[in-house]
């Protein structure tokens, strides 16, 4: 949609006018990215810094979002939590998309036995309950930020490889691919130069929506005791752990991480929806 150069600003303005929710989502996502990138500058305290005499104080001028049971500043923890969520989210989705694209594009492009075999494996994978895949992986790998990433990525990759395969099939049918083949281009060149650019939009949209799902999934894992382990402050961990424990006496310990999760999921989904409407109308049903 947007042409390089001066068209950017205008395209953005038009996007914001036509897709106000999408623009709102984009703002939220950008805010999260900024929080994650500059956590040290934004957060007034360290995420594990206990402040003497400030146990479970309500939100105030000194502590915008209050403090928790270990006397830590919740605003600071929410800011650092953005870093954890973004790290988990982006790493997971990047890994998942890499896998999904590799599987989806090659199966659709080459077809044949390769397609058949890989798709049956994906079928089998998808027919297992998420729970057993994730819990088994977490139990094998042990809790840890990196392992949460791997466990979630493997799952998301399987689902999304289907959609990417579908999109690739649509591209491969086109005449220019056949033309490229006819003039003797190598498979690698065709895939990189012709197929990938045409499925890029699909991948971006899927990735945006998956980001929201990962953040939610991490919070559910935290509830089950398999989330990102301490001392890293993940939003899910803050809500499912001490947030839930002290929910009556210090509701702010639960509310703010909860709000952060909801906003992030809202932001990623709205942005994803809007991108879908704008970039690739065919994907609406997916």
């Amino acid at each position, binding site marked *: 949609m947007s042409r390089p150069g001066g068209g950017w600003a205008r395209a953005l303005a038009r996007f914001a006018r036509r897709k106000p929710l999408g623009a709102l989502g984009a703002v939220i996502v950008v805010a999260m990215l900024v929080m994650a990138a500059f956590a040290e500058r934004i957060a007034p305290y360290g995420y*594990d810094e*206990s402040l003497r005499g400030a*146990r479970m104080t309500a939100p105030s001028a000194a502590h915008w979002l209050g403090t928790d049971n270990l006397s830590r500043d919740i605003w600071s923890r929410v800011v650092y939590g953005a870093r954890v969520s973004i790290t988990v989210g982006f790493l997971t989705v990047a890994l998942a998309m890499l896998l999904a694209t590799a599987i989806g594009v090659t199966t659709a492009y080459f077809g044949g036995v390769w397609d058949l075999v890989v798709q049956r494996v994906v079928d089998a994978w998808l027919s297992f309950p998420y729970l057993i895949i994730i819990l088994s992986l977490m*139990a094998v790998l*042990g*809790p840890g930020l990196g392992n949460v990433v791997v466990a979630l990525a493997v799952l998301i990759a399987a689902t999304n490889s289907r959609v990417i395969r579908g999109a690739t099939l649509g591209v491969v049918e086109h005449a220019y691919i056949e033309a490229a083949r006819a003039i003797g281009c190598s498979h690698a060149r065709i895939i990189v130069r012709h197929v990938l650019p045409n499925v890029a939009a699909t991948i971006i949209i899927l990735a945006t929506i998956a980001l929201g799902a990962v953040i939610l999934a991490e919070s559910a894992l935290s509830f089950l005791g398999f989330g990102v382990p*301490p001392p890293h402050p993940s939003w899910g961990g803050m809500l499912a*752990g*001490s947030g839930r*424990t002290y929910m009556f006496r210090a509701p702010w310990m639960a509310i703010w991480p909860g709000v952060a999760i909801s906003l992030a999921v809202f932001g990623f989904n709205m942005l994803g929806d809007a991108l879908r409407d704008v970039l690739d109308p065919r994907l609406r049903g997916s």
Partner: protein
Amino acid sequence: MDLSRRQLLAAGSLSLAGVALGAPGAGAQAPKRGGTLSLRLWDPPHFDLHAPGGLSYKLHIALTFTHSRLLKPKAGPSVHPGTFPLEPDLAESWTQPNERTYVFKLRRGVKWHPKPPVNGRELVADDVVYTVNRFMTTKGNANAFMLESLARVEATDKYTVKFTLKEPFAWFLDTLANPMALAIVARECVEKFGDLKQPEAVVGTGPWMLDAYRPNQGLTYVRHPGYFVAGLPYIDRVEATVDEDNASRISSFLAGKYDIGWENPGTINRTDWVQIKDKVKRPVRTAEFPSNVMSHISMRADEKPFSDVRVRQAMSLAIDRKGLIEATAEGVGVMNPPVPAALRDWTIPMEQLGEGARWYRYDPAEARKLLAAAGYASGFPGSVCFTTYGSTVLVDSMQLVQKYLKDVGIDAKIDQKEYGAYVSSCFYGNFSSMAFGPQTPFLEPDTFLYGQYYPNHPRNQSHINDPQVADMLVRQRRTADPVKRRAVIYDIQRYLATKQYYVQMPSGVYVGVWDAALKNYGPNIGYDYGGRLTAAWLDR
């Protein structure tokens, strides 16, 4: 530090005094028969006390309602929580002709539950012998170690049982009274069902009978009409609910569904209690007593750097125990010497700990000096094996401990494991640096001390091989006189305090909570729910 403990104990006895003051009035009332008591219990993996997987509290608590032992700890409002005076259960009396022999006279006319295949026949000495032998010979009985000192058991007549030990074991009677060990089961059940795992095989001589078992949901008990104490139990029916989520438990308690606190042993976590006590609309009673759940840092004391006593002492000095109590136990907790403070008769008061008491202070500066003297001026890296046990309090404690250690230069990475992986490795000392977590809450000091400190014992997580400790551990087992035995146990604690093989954390103080309509009930630590409720009654 010492002060807070004394204050606490004072506070504990104060609230108990409150209970006791209420008691004469209650005692004047004649007990009422009838009613249903509801409480939260745990889903037993199966019902065979001796089979593998008949683990700890989940099964033991459930069977205290239905089964009897030879002896039991006395229950009721007059018993101080943390003490376990023994009284007869199936035994009428007992004698100890010599150090290694115990002879029990059984009550006559004790009837099994009127359920097939036992059908209410009389309990006799052979039943006891059968149970003890099954306990000792069933493959995979995780508690078999409790009777490892026993050589043989025999019935000398229909109502007399004689136990002969391999060596003197001063804790033998306490062991028989422990719900983990020796509930008497019926041979007919084992013969009919093959084992005792099915709910139909729950046939005992206890005050209630298992009426229904709903997997993952709950258990229903009904009164045993032929219970051997005439008139008991007063309560007709016990409804136990399996409830795996704390929010759900809070909700149920507030709605009046539970008559006693939902955590073992009939308590409510202080964190929850301070939040909901104003919202409980019905009258309830409370009593406070220290918890026997104690966490510690264990470490490879057989390897560098932990083989240097100064390093271990420095670690103890680095821990702000008061800070831990403030942050994780709502400011109410007790300091633990090597025997948890909850075991009132055996734990050494901090002020009598002598030289070793200084290591329980919080003194990071001194800790850094000690580390420097040991050659670790800039600290050292390490890892802490850990599992959450699903407890936010434990997770919070772990984070604080990590921070305290870091403050003195010990950079400990948390190596968090899933429970299954943890129990199969770190709990048995299979870790490379340190581990952190709670220990099984026993009721006598021997199981704590012997397991943790005797060379090559599987629960000797710190890999301690200290002949002086080993010698004292054996000596206390051979000291029959409780006063002299206490002196040995005090000596062990004094010695261990200077060595700091484990860095003990403080424990919380339980809040025992029960509905005011539940009379003649006194909370205590330990799994004996059934015993504590046998003579209790409901005034409604």
